[in-house]
């Protein structure tokens, strides 16, 4: 099998990852249309803006070399007479169940912009799902290059409209109105929320609010009135006047854009952790010492890829990004990840913020668990540096993860550097979390911590943060890269 299972829903072709390369196998009958699309103004402009994945067709020799790999032969045989294209690789793939709502909104915006631009070139977007988009840092990139088909100029209907509503608008609406986390929607539902699902959440008055009426209530009432076997609904309604069809579609896209913008997450959302940087327990000298310690470690190790675990509002992710690293910042709080996304976009930093709980990381999803690999599958060995700052007490106390397990996870993820903050059980925050269970951590101190580190890491240096019960450690992974 290729290293990532191929996508298989689109009959026009499939995409898979093989030896670090992203390959797209296109069916014989779809090659010409695919190549025509890649030559359009729309594709060229979005590729130039780095919002569309760059793509090249492999020549016969390159394709023949791939055919020699037994893992790829089933894919070749599934597309007889097809062609192979190669896409640029997006550094760390992420999925909608790991995005803060801000990123789902940005992916939706890009999808609509592309659909509109393609319309002008005579092409239509044939599916509209957030799974067509990955993020390079905080910027969305449309990766499903085969999602475009030549459209009938007389067709005023955009078939993926319902999918766009299910996978972008309704999840954003449910998140905004009832605080439903995107992870809960997309982990269990590949295709988002049906209007009927959301209708059940709505109170009697809510059903008549303008947004709900158009996105939820009217579609629900209409589907109740139509018979389930009424195939006439799905027949194309082609218009002789193509100018009129184009006008209708342009108006649909503008309407969807307005609705999407009305669901844009608020800029300054509050949560338990979003004010941490303003309310944390460090005084200025301690925080300055911590910042200096992390900066020095980054300067010394120069990691190209950094995972900031428990990133909060991304202060240290920004330090790593400013030091030249490609950063993945994870936090279990969607408001924090959303704030990082805002900041990253404003400051043009290379940070990918994700909503991930390290104690309960995103599982593998999709058919045979092969469509979206788990977070740890993607993270293992993928980073040169890991930051675990003000994190271990949450894992030790709240999640009851043994110290050795935490260090083993860091060992699996980093190829070189680990900067970790040790928090003594006497620390104010630690005590707030233990809630009378102090005896569980009575033996934990720096000696025990350093002993636990020894099998996995070499201690490069450590520093007690003045006026706190915390100590910073700069550790080097033992035994080379994972």
């Amino acid at each position: 099998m290729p290293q990532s299972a191929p996508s298989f829903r689109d009959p026009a072709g499939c995409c898979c990852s093989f030896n670090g390369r992203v390959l797209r196998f296109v069916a014989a009958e779809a090659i010409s249309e695919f190549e025509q699309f890649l030559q359009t103004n729309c594709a060229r402009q979005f590729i130039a803006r780095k919002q569309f994945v760059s793509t090249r067709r492999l020549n016969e020799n390159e394709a023949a070399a791939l055919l020699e790999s037994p893992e790829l032969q089933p894919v070749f045989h599934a597309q007889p007479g097809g062609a192979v294209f190669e896409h640029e690789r997006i550094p760390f793939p992420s999925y909608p169940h790991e995005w803060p709502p801000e990123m789902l909104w940005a992916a939706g915006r890009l999808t609509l912009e592309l659909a509109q631009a393609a319309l002008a070139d005579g092409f239509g977007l044939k599916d509209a799902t957030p799974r067509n988009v990955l993020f390079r840092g905080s910027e969305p990139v449309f990766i499903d290059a085969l999602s475009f088909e030549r459209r009938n100029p007389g067709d005023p209907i955009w078939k993926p409209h319902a999918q766009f509503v299910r996978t972008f608008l309704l999840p954003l609406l449910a998140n905004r109105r009832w605080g439903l986390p995107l992870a809960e929607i997309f982990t269990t539902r590949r295709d988002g929320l049906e209007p009927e699902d959301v209708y059940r959440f709505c109170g009697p008055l809510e059903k008549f609010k303008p947004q709900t009426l158009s996105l939820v209530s009217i579609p629900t009432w209409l589907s109740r009135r139509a018979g389930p076997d009424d195939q006439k609904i799905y027949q194309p309604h082609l218009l002789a006047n193509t100018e009129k069809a184009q006008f209708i579609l342009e108006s649909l896209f503008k309407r969807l854009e307005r609705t999407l913008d009305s669901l844009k997450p608020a800029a300054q959302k509050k949560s338990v952790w979003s004010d941490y940087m303003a309310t944390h327990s460090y005084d200025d000298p301690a925080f300055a010492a911590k910042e200096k310690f992390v900066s020095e470690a980054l300067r010394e190790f120069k990691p190209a890829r950094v995972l900031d675990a428990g990133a909060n509002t991304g202060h240290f992710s920004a330090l790593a990004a400013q030091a030249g690293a490609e950063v993945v910042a994870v936090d279990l709080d969607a408001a924090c990840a959303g704030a990082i996304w805002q900041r990253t976009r404003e400051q043009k930093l290379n940070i990918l913020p994700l909503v991930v709980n390290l104690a309960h990381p995103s599982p593998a999803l999709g058919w045979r668990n092969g469509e979206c690999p788990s977070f740890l599958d993607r993270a293992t060995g993928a980073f040169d540096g890991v930051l675990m700052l003000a994190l271990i007490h949450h894992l030790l106390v709240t999640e009851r993860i043994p110290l050795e397990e935490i260090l083993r996870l860091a060992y699996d993820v980093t190829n070189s550097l680990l900067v970790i903050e040790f928090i003594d059980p006497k620390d104010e925050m630690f005590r707030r979390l233990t809630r009378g269970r102090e005896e569980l951590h009575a033996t934990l101190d720096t000696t025990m911590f350093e002993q636990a580190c020894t099998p996995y890491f070499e201690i490069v240096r450590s520093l007690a943060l003045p006026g706190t019960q915390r100590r910073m450690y700069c550790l080097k992974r033992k035994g080379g890269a994972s």
Partner: protein
Amino acid sequence: MTILILAYIDPGMGALLWQTIIAAFVGFLFYLKKTRRWIVGVFRKMFGRSQKPSDPVAEIPAKETMKAKADVR
């Protein structure tokens, strides 16, 4: 022209019907907009003709204007 129909995604039912209804309404707006544009065009033409005599530059034939400009240079 051959049109590849590859709508492998579920187009929904209620949402598709709602889109069709809105499309019909927007189609009606399309004709309204065209008619409005046509009426505005007719008025502009009429209005434009009636304004010309009051515009001293407009009274001068194009060739003469060009010549006058050339003389100034």
